[in-house]
């Protein structure tokens, strides 16, 4: 009985909560420059709702895991279908440009300004760790500090950026 009650999911809540999560995963997998990404997200949500209505979600896993499994399968199907029609599998850009919405562009601009404002030692840590993609140990060796200090400095740099973004709101 308790399991049945848990399975009584609010479909509207599912769409609201999981659309951004599914969107994030799909875009990471196939890229925002791929025009079909939005259709794929909608297909996944439709599939999730249909399966819930057909009582195929029995509560054996969490709803998050259930939706993740459906999302993964759809992405794999898409990539397989694309690889059959092209000589090469379409590879997403490693860091596609932020989505072309005004809000996203504004946020990117604010992040840019926030990073620019950082003191040199905090910008340098972001440059080495994220832009150059060095490991903590490599950054530590380069700067002559401990790996722990690198983690702390990265964490603090991000904290400063987020703090600057909050003051802009």
């Amino acid at each position, binding site marked *: 009985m308790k399991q049945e009650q848990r399975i009584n999911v609010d479909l509207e809540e599912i769409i609201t909560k999981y659309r951004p*999560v599914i969107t994030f995963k799909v875009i990471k997998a196939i890229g925002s420059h791929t025009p079909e990404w939005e259709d794929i997200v909608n297909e996944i949500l439709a599939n999730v709702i249909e399966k819930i209505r057909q009582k195929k979600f029995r509560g054996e896993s969490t709803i998050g895991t259930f939706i993740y499994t459906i999302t993964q399968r759809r992405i794999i199907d898409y990539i397989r279908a694309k690889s059959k029609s092209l000589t090469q599998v379409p590879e997403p850009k490693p860091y596609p440009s932020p989505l072309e919405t005004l809000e996203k562009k504004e946020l990117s601009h604010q992040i840019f300004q926030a990073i620019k404002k950082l003191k040199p030692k905090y910008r340098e840590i972001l440059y080495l760790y994220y832009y150059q993609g060095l490991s903590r140990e490599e950054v530590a060796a380069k700067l002559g500090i401990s790996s722990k200090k690198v983690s702390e400095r990265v964490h603090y740099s991000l904290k400063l950026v987020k703090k600057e973004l909050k003051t802009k709101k």
Partner: protein
Amino acid sequence: MKKCKYEELIDDYLLGRLSPPEKEAFEEHYFNCSLCFHKLQERDAIISVIKSEGVTLFQDIYARELTKSPSWWEKLTAFLPFPQVAVAVTTAAIVLLVVLGINSLRQPSSPQFILTDSQVRGESITLISPVIDINSIPTEFRWTSLGNKIKYYRIYIYNHELLWSHQTEENFVVLPEEVKEKLKAGEKYSWQVKAFAGDGHLVAVSSRVQFKVTPRQ
């Protein structure tokens, strides 16, 4: 609020450092953890800006690195993959030099093929781009010009072996399509330029510098 253990994996996930099973486990987790997903979105937005606008954001740091002259150790390890190999090669080189030095005392001096800084009168070729991680396969390789005394340059691109070599009179080269196809994302490459005078005499050699095309997510 108790920190989620998966929070520490956010950077590794976004920078493509997780193994496939780890990546799957992390992805399944953020489908179930609103807190981690929120932090993931925040971090992704910041890293996206860093990666796409990095050239502008970190111009001063990048320029400082270009003008910094590498120590002999940094020059040596720039193209050697592992520190242990670097130590072994350096030791072997020292032993070889000692042996050659002893031999040269008995024989007339032979032509030198190894240029020292004094022989090129302090000039060296600085490689301009690509020199660090890049988001896409480079289309052009560029280096500093040494002026009219140089008849031509020769560029060499390596992964584990020589991938491509080309001669040019300019201080840049546009990569042919067939060579671009050989460069794969996630792989490390290095390149070097040598400058020759009109009589074919080697005038200057750049350091061998690594670059990597950022792996795909």
